[in-house]
């Protein structure tokens, strides 16, 4: 037989030999359907992780409620009834605090009264407002993961960007908003970017591990902020408090409800969505994104392919820092309008969770951020209505991350099938991978 024909017939044969061993190869659905199914399947674990975490959260609520114990003292039936009413009340408040009460929203819409409508949709606006800085911070860490870098420094980058943003916000006067606002945003991105690029540079030039250096840069940033915003510090407002002056109104991110001080959702959210699309475009549509992902997936192959691993590492860290910086900028320009000394409580660290939950995909990060925003908005409401401490969110968030990081638990719990090897996302290379 002619060799060439043999080869061709092999290519066309329906049963092509595949895979190192056949077990690597999975279903043969049409490509489009297979992809959709794969995407859906990849959502199963996060979904179950959230549900399971909420269930455990409910148990925590029940087990820490004294009235439940008292009711159990009167009999099992009473106890169960009390427990379920406690959970109903707490989670009712939780969901209505995160998403609003649908009945109330509809009634309000029909009533046509501004105040009623605003109060009804308020929970939703809180969820969106809280998720805005989360999106930026999550994108920062996710981009790092894509480039094989573990940016634990988002928190520090956030602080530095906050300082730079707020400075541009209050010290620069007389500019129209169309210039002042972008300038303040840019300042934050550049500040965070530089703060991120330094550990990147250290890694590229000396091989120093970015995890160590970003942590150290965090401490420097915290102390820097403490110094600048000390009651007598160079950036203090001068009323004896460790806070910066208020920024100029020309640097405000436009509000959706400008005259309502309680509704603080602002155009920062639109910016966050736009930046998420931009990050996606960068990662998957540009040569730079290809370089970042290649360095992340296999730095040796990247070097072999002629890419400059060092340059890519620095760029990735700078971009990651810039994204983390924008989370501070939007909080200051859109919500706070000043910077206090004790500024953030852990956006940068929550961001790691967000990137994991979003599988380091920009759109996944957006979804994860909305979830975390909802969790926090809901928790705040649950505290007010059901007296459940806000710390419950931390527990639920923590559990979600544990279940995402160790999907085996969820698979065992719900008896799910083992995934295909390539479904698993490898986020970062191990320690010491210079």
């Amino acid at each position, binding site marked *: 037989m002619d060799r060439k024909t043999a080869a061709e017939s092999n290519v066309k044969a329906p049963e092509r030999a595949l895979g190192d061993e056949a077990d690597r190869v999975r279903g043969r659905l049409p490509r489009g359907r297979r992809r959709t199914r794969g995407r859906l399947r990849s959502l199963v674990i996060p979904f179950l992780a959230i549900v399971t975490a909420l269930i455990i959260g409910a148990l925590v609520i029940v087990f820490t409620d004294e009235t439940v114990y008292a009711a159990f003292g009167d009999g099992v039936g009473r106890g169960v009834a009390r427990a379920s009413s406690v959970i109903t009340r707490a989670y009712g408040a939780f969901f209505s605090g995160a998403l609003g009460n649908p009945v109330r929203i509809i009634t309000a819409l029909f009533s046509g009264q501004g105040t009623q409508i605003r109060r009804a949709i308020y929970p939703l606006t809180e969820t969106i407002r809280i998720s805005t800085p989360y999106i930026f911070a999550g994108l920062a860490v996710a981009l790092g993961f894509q480039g094989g870098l573990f940016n634990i420094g988002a928190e520090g980058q956030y602080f530095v960007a906050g300082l730079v943003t707020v400075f541009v916000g209050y010290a620069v006067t007389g500019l129209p908003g169309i210039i002042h606002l972008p300038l303040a945003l840019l300042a934050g991105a550049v500040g965070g970017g530089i703060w991120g690029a330094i550990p990147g540079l250290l890694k590229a030039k000396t091989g120093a591990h970015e995890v160590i250096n970003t942590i150290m840069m965090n401490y420097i940033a915290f102390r820097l902020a403490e110094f600048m915003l*000390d009651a007598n510090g160079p950036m203090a407002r001068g009323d004896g408090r460790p806070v910066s002056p208020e920024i100029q109104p020309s640097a405000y991110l436009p509000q959706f409800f400008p005259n309502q001080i309680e509704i603080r959702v602002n155009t920062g959210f639109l910016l966050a969505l736009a930046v998420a699309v931009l990050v996606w475009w960068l990662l998957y549509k540009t040569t730079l994104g290809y370089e970042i992902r290649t360095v992340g997936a296999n730095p040796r192959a990247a070097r072999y392919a002629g890419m400059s691993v060092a340059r890519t590492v620095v760029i990735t860290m700078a971009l990651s820092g810039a994204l983390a910086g924008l989370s501070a900028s939007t909080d200051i320009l859109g*919500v706070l309008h000043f910077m206090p000394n*004790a500024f*953030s409580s852990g956006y940068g660290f929550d961001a790691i969770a967000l990137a994991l939950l979003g599988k380091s995909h920009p759109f996944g990060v957006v979804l994860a951020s909305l979830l975390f925003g909802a969790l926090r908005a809901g928790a705040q409401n649950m505290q007010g209505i059901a007296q459940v401490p*806000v710390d419950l969110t931390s527990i639920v968030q923590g559990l979600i991350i544990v279940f995402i990081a160790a999907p085996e638990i969820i698979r065992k719990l719900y008896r799910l099938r083992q995934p295909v090897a390539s479904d698993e996302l490898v986020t970062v290379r191990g320690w010491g991978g210079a």
Partner: protein
Amino acid sequence: MRKRVSIGLVAILLASLVLNACGGGAASGYKVGMVTDMGGVDDKSFNASGWKGIEDAIKELGIEGSYLESQQQTDYATNITQYVNQGTNLIITVGYMLADDTANFAKANPDINFAIVDFAYDPPIDNVRALTFATDQASFLAGYAAAAATKTGKVACFGGINIPSVSIFMVGYEAGVKYYNAQHGTDVQVLGWSTAANNGVFVGNFESTDDGRRTGEEFLAEGADVIMAVAGPVGQGTAEAVQVAGNAWFIGVDQDWTLTAPKYTDVILTSVLKNIDVAVFDTIKLASAKDFAGFGGESYVGTLANDGVGLADVADGAIPSEIVDELEDVRKGIIDGTIDSGWETYLSGL
């Protein structure tokens, strides 16, 4: 079995989605809400103390009270909004970090009364009562007692963050030590604060007990045997260090540490009491009265005279009994103005 339990729980969850628990609390009565700062209600410091004032008011005045904890700067407005939407009559915000949000909401809601702990507006806002404390008066007494108790001739203090509500303790403390020196011809030194230099030791936060322990160990190593920590829970680390070292004393602030941190009782010399609960109670009583016509921008200053600040009992045998008597005289002197507890002088010298 396990499956059935989870199904049951999911059902409860779903039920909770459908049945919506609407606004909490009974319909009638005077409603007071407190918004904590990031320290949370069980900070064993001023949030806890403020909440105690509300609890007292619930018992004695029959009002309805609740609190909301904040985890981030951006939570303050969220929590105040909740209280505004719930129709709360008096909203108490704890700490200077809430000053901007409190002012904004107070101006937007003139029919709701507010009180803020540890901050005064200039100019005052009509419907906000500023609750401030002349803690220098009480810490002056603590400094006097410390100077009497020291065997090494060195006493120390440190703060959390350099803000007026913290440094006021240290100013009074140093003044008290100096007064003792003048009275007794001694030369007890103060480490950690100098009014003349307008500078002192600050750990930079109100959270890290580690920082507290380290700072305490440093002072002990420098020879101090009385340490006052003006840094909320950070002081627990310091008390720990003092207890481990033995032969030294710790001075707590805000609340009586023999009650809030009893395991350190054996090393607690005394506590500088900043009776936020008294101020909060006083405010609730004032505002919930039938004939209340508004704060009108009036503020509250806690002093030794109105029991807004005070000194807890000094540990038995730590100082001679004649010093205990002297402390009472000093107290009277401060109240009638013959003794300068230091803060006003310090401010005017800035």
